[in-house]
């Protein structure tokens, strides 16, 4: 009986040892999807995560009219920075409110910048015309700014104070209440 047990165990272990390499491969490939691709750092130049309290991440883009629309072009005044796309339903829904904020910006001492993501010049130009947008729009054609600000899907709005610090973030459509709150946090006295 003992001999039989020992033989069985020996056969089992022999089987396992013969299978060690393929088993190793199988485990490796089974686990590989779970561990995923090597994680990479965020885009170059990003020093701080884009969260409230951190300095806004610098960028250089061009507006639809060809003028520079980088972050430094808006320094000195609070900035409402809205990421949107012409194909995005909630972006279109909130756009009248963003446009209203822009129409009061000069009087209340702040700027509004639209950043079009995953969109083309022609479509954005049409949208700006159709929606009668009164604020500058920058084209983030290679998605670098969207990624730096960790915008998974438009719309998203960042309220940045006059010193260039992010004070509030609204992910998803803007509301009157959140706009008031964001402007207040960014130092806009109304």
């Amino acid at each position, binding site marked *: 009986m003992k001999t039989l047990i020992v033989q069985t165990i020996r056969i089992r272990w022999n089987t396992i040892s013969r299978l060690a390499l393929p088993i190793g491969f199988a485990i490796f490939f089974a686990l590989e999807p779970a561990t995923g691709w090597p994680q990479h750092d965020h885009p170059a130049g990003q020093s701080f995560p884009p969260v409230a309290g951190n300095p806004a991440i610098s960028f250089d883009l061009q507006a639809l009219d060809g003028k520079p629309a980088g972050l430094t072009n808006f320094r000195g005044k609070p900035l409402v920075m809205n990421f949107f796309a012409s194909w995005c339903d909630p972006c279109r829904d909130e756009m009248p409110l963003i446009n209203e904020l822009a129409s009061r910006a000069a009087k209340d001492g702040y700027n509004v910048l639209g950043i079009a993501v995953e969109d083309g010049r*022609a479509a954005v130009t049409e949208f700006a015309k159709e929606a009668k947008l009164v604020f500058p729009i920058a084209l983030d054609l*290679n998605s670098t700014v969207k990624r730096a600000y960790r915008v998974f899907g438009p719309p998203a709005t960042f309220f940045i104070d006059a010193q260039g610090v992010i004070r509030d973030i609204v992910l998803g459509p803007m509301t009157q209440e959140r706009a008031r709150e964001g402007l207040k946090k960014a130092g806009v006295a109304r």
Partner: protein
Amino acid sequence: MKASPTKSLWTTACFLLAGCSAELIPPHRGRITPLSLGPEIQLGDSEANPSTPFLRFAVDGKLYAIWTEDESGQKNNPSSLSAHQHSGKMAPSPLRNALLAASSDGGKTWSASKQVNSGAEAVQGEENGPKVAFDASNRPYVVWSIPGEKGDKTRANIRFAMADGNGGFTPARTLNEVKDAARFPIIEFSPDGNLLIAWIDRRIDNPKPRQLYLMRIGLDGKALTKNYAVGEGLCECCKLGIAFADGGKTVYMVDRQVNDKQVRNHVLRKSTDGAATFEAPVEISDDGWQVPSCPHSGPSLARDRRGQLHVTWFTLGRSEKDAGIYYGVSKDDGKSFAARQLVHANTAPEILYSTLAVGEDDTVYLAWSNLDGTGKAQIFMRSLAPDGRTWTPIQQLSNAKGNAGRPVLALRKNQLHVAWTETDGEDSRVVLRSGTVDQ
């Protein structure tokens, strides 16, 4: 009663060995060799910013590609040119055409492309590009969407055209009976012999999110049904997926749902009466991604010969660490889905796009976008063996200078084709890679 040490040892050993046998000696014959694909081929007029490809085989084995390009009439528009940064390049225009071309040699060479839309239109792209289906006599039928009357891309219209028998296409007509309310169309030649068209509709704008609408069209292009709703609660900006069984009597559809808390999980819908009605949707995976903004990335569905349903999708999940491309399978005809498998984790904050196709041996091929080590979106691919567990290594297919996105697959016998859009600044191009797989 006290167990003897020898007996305990023996019992433990038996359990361990039984466990080892079950876990370590699976009877799989999975493939782990990487896929082999040929060099990149560009489709379309490189001066006209080709984008948003879709691939499909006709019954005769020809591979077709449809994509969009800038309207050629804009080429010499001085006012548009002044805004464009690339001298000599076609000016950007909201007017885009749908182009169709065929390859008889496995994607190596292509026929001259034919414009499908009869008039100048702003044929939409992104998740919402044109789609083509073929009947048993290889006749193409095409759907696409154009912005609504006021130019609103989100209040759009579904257009339809078919080959006119003289080498061209019939004049396009609008399929949605309520204007400015439909987009994300798909078209399929149903095994029961006519065309099934589906789209996301917003004719009822509130309080519910979007509806799933269908209609049937005969091979002569005439409507066989009016528009009819079969589902609701759809995410407004994510593509649909579809598969057939039982000669077209059974129809499966997948879409991204959005609930009242803005959680956007995916569901499978099943019809057993040829898409006239659908059973209650079955959740594919409780990912829990709560997002009030636009995911603009929908699921993809395929059915294998065993009747298993394969789905891939993107989700951010309940936290960013869960973000990535996932795969799920139903082995009980859509009643339930096995726990999701992570195909590729997000390498950076980014919406990813995925698609899949199933081979004749039930191998599942997946393609998707993700960021590479330099922060650019690229196309990746891997396959899953019929055992459902053995994955090939992840392969990067593209080397885009800017970004690559929205891959599509076509698979027939041992021919595998992958196409995608690459963008760099204001330029775009359509890239195709082809290869053969073991079947």
